[in-house]
């Protein structure tokens, strides 16, 4: 297709540059040649410069180059898709598309979001999709920008979340400017990320771009969800489209792949006939409807539920939620069903980090295992995020949430309420109540300590937001799970879950994307991100983007001044090797100097306070921060915290 566009875009620039250089030394215009001269301030022109000055231009004038630019058509393609945002850090490889988005496209639907690092641009897509239930796009620079964004792409992949990643490139060598543009071009730009995207393409014509971009979107939102990539050729984008009419494939309604009804009925019979059925949920629930279905399923079965927290899968205070007693209920189980469980093997096996690795099943012999997931449809070879294989007695291939209505109907058709089920449910309810009391008691320890306990931080936050429409956008894991232990999660959008790929920095970048989706959802939602200091320092520029785009979010820095997980790992090695423990802090702590997060936030236009190390000062500071967030702005508190 490019052959039909006979206008070359860039030969002009070299001539202009040379001409400008050649004109640098001259007489003053209009002056007598010998009467007044000015001493040249630069060297005399080279032969090449002189030639450029005197010879005809190598290319047409710039104004002749563009009729209707191809990048405008690319914007038409993006506008044909339900994509509200394109997050970008600017790069010359996509300058044409950039300009078309903000001028031709009116910077609306999609709107360009300014990010200061490609990890932020892609990571925002990750967090956004979990809340908005649709992808947004990122537009990142060729080669170098892609490398910046690659970890966020990997997290997105490992978490099975949709995103459209667009990567700039200059494919035709004669179109590349000398120097940087060669370094930022590749013959196969997506090769480096191909192992962790679902599909990619590098369109070489506009019909190709239209079809592949729509296909990339479709692939991304088809379970198993995953990021897809489109390489945007800069030379194509900057070419003229003329009057050619190019069709854009329509994005029709798509139905989700559900499990085979007969297999779901078989699963229902196994579960309904069990003495102690257990449901293990991980990346199962996306919507409130899904949440209602999974609650109904558990209640119909009287099943214990283990929520692995990849999403907000199950109300944490529901009496059947036995996540805190996972080992106990697994030991009693005779049927275990994992629904979109990223690591079913890891759930039903113990593991100890010892020199001699020992793992054992947590279930008793003969326990039946059922798996329902679409993830088996998408496994790549290189990166090992697929975890160990768990043999299942019944494997059902289908999207978990989409299959729930069929599974629920099947269970309801075969399940009956028995005295055994009633007793089982009562036992679970009693255990859940006792567990809640233990958690509350556990939170009292170090309640008044400084640094401030993580339990205290979490409960001070909850005290301020519990009557709002709040959402926890960052993982609860590094908070010792205190939110999921003590807050009251009842809505699907109240928790964004885990990172998928465990790439540090996820919590910050994904929280910003989630906060954007919450803002757009309306109703004054309050996104809460408790971010580790190490995580935030991977992508501190989220603060600027939050301020620049007025994205309200309450950020509390869990500032334990260390990469604490790694500190514990090094200490473990020091103990194993029989050496002193003191040096474990070398390379793992973030002290000397301590990072002043409040100043950092302030420098980027974000309201902030801190460091706060007196627990009695935290509540009032949170109240002030919440007022800022409710006004539509981001706010940050730097809280000096206990390790976990």
């Amino acid at each position, binding site marked *: 297709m490019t052959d039909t566009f006979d206008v070359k875009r860039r030969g002009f620039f070299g001539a202009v540059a040379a001409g400008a250089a050649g004109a640098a030394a001259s007489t003053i215009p209009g002056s007598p040649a010998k009467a007044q001269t000015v001493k040249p301030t630069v060297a005399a022109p080279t032969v090449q410069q002189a030639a450029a000055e005197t010879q005809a231009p190598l290319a047409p004038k710039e104004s002749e180059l563009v009729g209707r630019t191809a990048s405008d058509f690319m914007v038409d393609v993006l506008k044909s898709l339900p994509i509200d945002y394109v997050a970008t850090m600017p790069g010359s490889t996509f300058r044409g598309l950039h300009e078309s988005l903000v001028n031709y496209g009116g910077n609306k639907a999609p709107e360009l979001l300014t990010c200061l690092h490609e990890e932020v641009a892609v990571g925002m897509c990750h967090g956004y999709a979990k809340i908005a239930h649709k992808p947004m796009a990122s537009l990142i620079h060729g080669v170098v920008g892609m490398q910046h964004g690659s970890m966020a792409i990997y997290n997105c992949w490992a978490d099975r979340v949709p995103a459209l990643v667009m990567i700039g490139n200059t494919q035709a060598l004669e179109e590349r400017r000398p120097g940087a543009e060669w370094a930022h071009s590749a013959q196969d730009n997506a090769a480096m990320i191909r192992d962790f995207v679902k599909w990619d393409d590098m369109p070489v014509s506009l019909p190709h771009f239209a079809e592949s971009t729509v296909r990339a979107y479709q692939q991304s939102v088809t379970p198993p969800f995953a990021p897809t990539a489109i390489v945007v050729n800069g030379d194509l984008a900057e070419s003229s489209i003329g009057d050619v009419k190019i069709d854009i494939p329509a994005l029709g309604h798509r139905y989700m792949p559900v499990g085979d009804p007969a297999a779901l009925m078989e699963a229902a019979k196994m579960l309904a006939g069990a003495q102690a059925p257990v449901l293990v949920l991980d990346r199962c629930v996306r919507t409130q409807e899904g949440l209602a279905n999974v609650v109904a399923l558990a209640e119909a079965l009287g099943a214990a539920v283990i929520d692995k927290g990849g999403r907000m899968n199950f109300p944490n*205070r529901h009496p059947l939620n036995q996540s805190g007693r996972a080992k106990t209920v697994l030991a009693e189980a005779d049927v275990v069903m994992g629904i979109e469980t990223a690591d079913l093997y890891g759930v039903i096996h113990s593991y*100890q*980090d010892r020199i001699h690795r020992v793992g054992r099943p947590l279930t008793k012999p003969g326990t039946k295992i059922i798996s329902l997931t679409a993830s088996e449809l998408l496994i790549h070879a290189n990166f090992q995020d697929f975890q160990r294989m768990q043999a299942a007695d019944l494997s059902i291939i289908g999207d978990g949430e989409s299959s729930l209505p069929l599974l629920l109907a099947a269970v309801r058709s075969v399940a009956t309420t028995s005295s055994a089920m009633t007793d089982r449910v009562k036992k679970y309810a009693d255990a859940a109540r006792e567990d*809640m009391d233990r958690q*509350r*008691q*556990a*939170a*009292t*320890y*170090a*309640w*008044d*300590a400084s*640094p401030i*306990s*993580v339990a205290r931080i979490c*409960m*001070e936050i*909850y*005290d301020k937001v519990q009557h709002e429409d709040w959402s926890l956008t960052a993982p609860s894991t590094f908070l*010792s799970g205190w939110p999921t232990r*003590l*807050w*009251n999660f009842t809505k699907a959008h109240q928790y964004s879950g885990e990172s998928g790929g465990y790439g540090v920095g996820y919590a910050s970048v994904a929280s910003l994307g989630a906060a954007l989706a919450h803002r757009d959802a309306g109703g004054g939602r309050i996104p809460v991100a408790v971010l580790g200091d190490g995580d935030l320092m991977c992508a501190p520029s989220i603060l600027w983007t939050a301020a620049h785009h007025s994205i309200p979010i309450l950020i509390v820095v869990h500032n334990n001044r260390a990469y*604490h997980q790694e*500190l*514990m790992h090094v*200490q*473990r090695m*020091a*103990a*194993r090797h*029989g*050496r*002193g*423990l*003191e040096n*474990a*802090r070398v390379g793992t702590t973030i002290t000397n100097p301590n990072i002043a997060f409040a100043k950092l936030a302030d420098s980027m236009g974000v309201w902030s306070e801190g460091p706060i190390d007196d627990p009695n000062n935290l509540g009032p500071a949170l109240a002030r921060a919440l007022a800022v967030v409710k006004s539509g702005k981001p706010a940050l508190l730097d809280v000096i915290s*206990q*390790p*976990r």
Partner: protein
Amino acid sequence: MTHKIALLAAALMLPATLALADEPKGDAAHGKQLFLADGCYECHGYVGQGGPGLRLAPNPKPPVAIAAYIRNPVGEMPPYTSAVLSDQGIRDIYAYLSTIPAAPKLADIPLLKVGE
């Protein structure tokens, strides 16, 4: 609960390598120093409140029980030999943990009146 049982069992089976119960009391100040320098706080919190590791304070287990578990843990905790933490160090840490005041009563913390 599993950890508590293991700790007790380990204490009962402890050979006579540690007669810590009969030894002089530890130095709480030095114990705090060790607790921080040796990284006990990483899993157990600065005041022993627990985290990834068990709660140690207030009311810590006797030194002999602590020593038994430290030397031969059965859970996720790595073993700490006398090469990295001496018996006297354990006594000192115990002395520090003994200084940790009782937590406030649950009923006196309004923020924890949740899920009742």
